[in-house]
């Protein structure tokens, strides 16, 4: 799932909240082309944890192709697809007041 710079999706504020809540990543760092591992410094276990958190919101990332979700933009696409497929809109997550 690659994409050109022209069709970069907007980052859902609830996805941004999840990334902030779990890993303290500021919203300002969430460019669509930011790579989860290289730019956001998430290790593979953290990526799995993010998947688990998103699953609680009804968004399933298939585990058999990790290359499919490499960037923040890829994540956003998975969220968009899930919403389009009828997953109720994401409930808001509480933003942490720390960091």
């Amino acid at each position, binding site marked *: 799932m690659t994409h050109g710079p022209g069709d970069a999706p907007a980052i859902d504020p609830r996805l941004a909240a999840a990334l902030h809540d*779990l*890993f*303290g*990543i*500021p919203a*300002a*760092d969430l460019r669509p082309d930011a790579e989860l*591992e290289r730019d*956001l*410094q*998430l*290790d*593979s*276990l*953290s990526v*799995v*944890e993010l998947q*688990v*958190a998103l699953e609680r919101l009804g968004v399933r990332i298939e*585990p*058999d192709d*990790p290359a499919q979700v490499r960037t923040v933009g890829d994540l956003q696409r998975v969220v968009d697809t899930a919403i389009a497929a009828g997953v109720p809109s994401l409930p808001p997550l509480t933003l942490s007041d*720390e*960091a």
Partner: protein
Amino acid sequence: MTGTIPALRAAAARYGPLVDEPYLATTVRGFANRPRTLDALLRGAAARWPDRAAVVAPAATLTYAELDRAVDAAAAGLLGAGAAAGDRVAVALGHDLPLFVVPFACSRAGVTALLLNTTLSPAQWAGQLSRARPALLVADTAHRDRLAQAAGDRAVVPADAALPLSGGDRSGVDTGAGEDAALALIATSGTTGVPKMTTVTSRGLIHAALAYVDLLGLGDDERTLVVLPLYYIGPLSAQTTTMPLVGGCSIVAADPRPVAAPALLARHAVTHLDAVPAWLGLLVRDAPAGPPPPHWRTLIYGGAPMPAETAARLHQRFPDVVLYDVWGLSETHGPATAVRLTPGAALPAGTVGRPVAGVDVRVLDATGGVQPAGRAGELQVRGANVTPGYFDDPALSATVVRDGWLSTGDIGAVDADGSVRILDRLKDVILRGGTNVFSVEVEQVLSTAPEVVEAAVYGVPDGLGGEAVAAAVVLAPGASLDAGELRRRVGAAIGVHAVPRRIVRLDALPRNPTGKIDKRRLRTEHP
């Protein structure tokens, strides 16, 4: 904590009995009829089972006779590429045949491999290289640029040149290395920021592997799937070294991810697996549903406590597999104690079982007195599997291994029945997946940021039943927290596994009455 010594099981009996022998200024119990070196082990296996499969790897499948010849070629290749007997060779290699061959080739050539952990940053590698001073640097294509970056202006020899797996011959290859020669160095971070490198020897690996053969009752039809990195001590002893002892086969997984494992376990008729709880948690979570792999019998795991939910789901999903929890360190070449898990029967918290064959465990109090059964203190291990020490650090070696007893840095107790319980860690270490993150090391990196006055790093629960890294920092007056910059700094200096997920800013770090940073309180108040 010796007692009646039970008879050795299965193939282990062939290498026994356990007899007293001098080692490290003490007396240990060694397997009397063991091969003395990895080289001798492989020669023996090749003579006994020449046509049996020894290793299945992405690059090739080899019988024992073919593996023996490949190791000849690799040993000659290392010596031809510029290493001499007694030298160190740094290797940065992926999960495939060349890395599998390295320990055997080093035993045959009399050289020592510095096994570079490929998840670490080039900056970490550079620190290890300056300490180990290798005569030769070897990398595969995937790791060549990073090793070159770590090595400054030194040349990196491609793996296919330094570790050819065919075409060599045995002439000119020095096989004089004894059982206590350093086969490999495995680096762990130290509290001083200088890497310490545990010496891996043939004596240690073979005793650790024979303890596994005995514990698990391994037979000659074993097929083990290697999913942990081959630069970890776990697979080196539990898999690479056990299989030639019994005539079994190692399968170096083409895809070591949990999601791929059920298919590999079934396709390769795997009987035995070595893993860590984080990997197993993903296995039960992500692996596609289907019948359990039909031949899989034994699973050993260690490195961190197993969440009860993971153990229950493993049993549900793979009911015929027997689980063993193993406690050990790089310094014990793998296992010190082990316990067989019984489904549905909870063990007392922290229980890691009894010492494996030939190993003794005792507990010392703060003044160095041996504690009676049930009383807590630092756990010490003695046996032929204990490392002789750390490379080029006699002072540290003498502190950690004294009269043959290894100080583990774990706090625990040995109960009257010989069962060991781990209660706490003396070392300030966070167990992240299969990797240890040393808090002090991350704190040092955070403190290099100009705005950070003081930093404390501690473990918090992750969402997967394991631990994640968290940090609290005190900033200079007027400075603002740039968590992204601090995270990148840690990633570049150590590796992404050590990057704190949460960095909180505090006015002051909490301290206990003796002035030490109170990490327990940080854990509670800032999880």
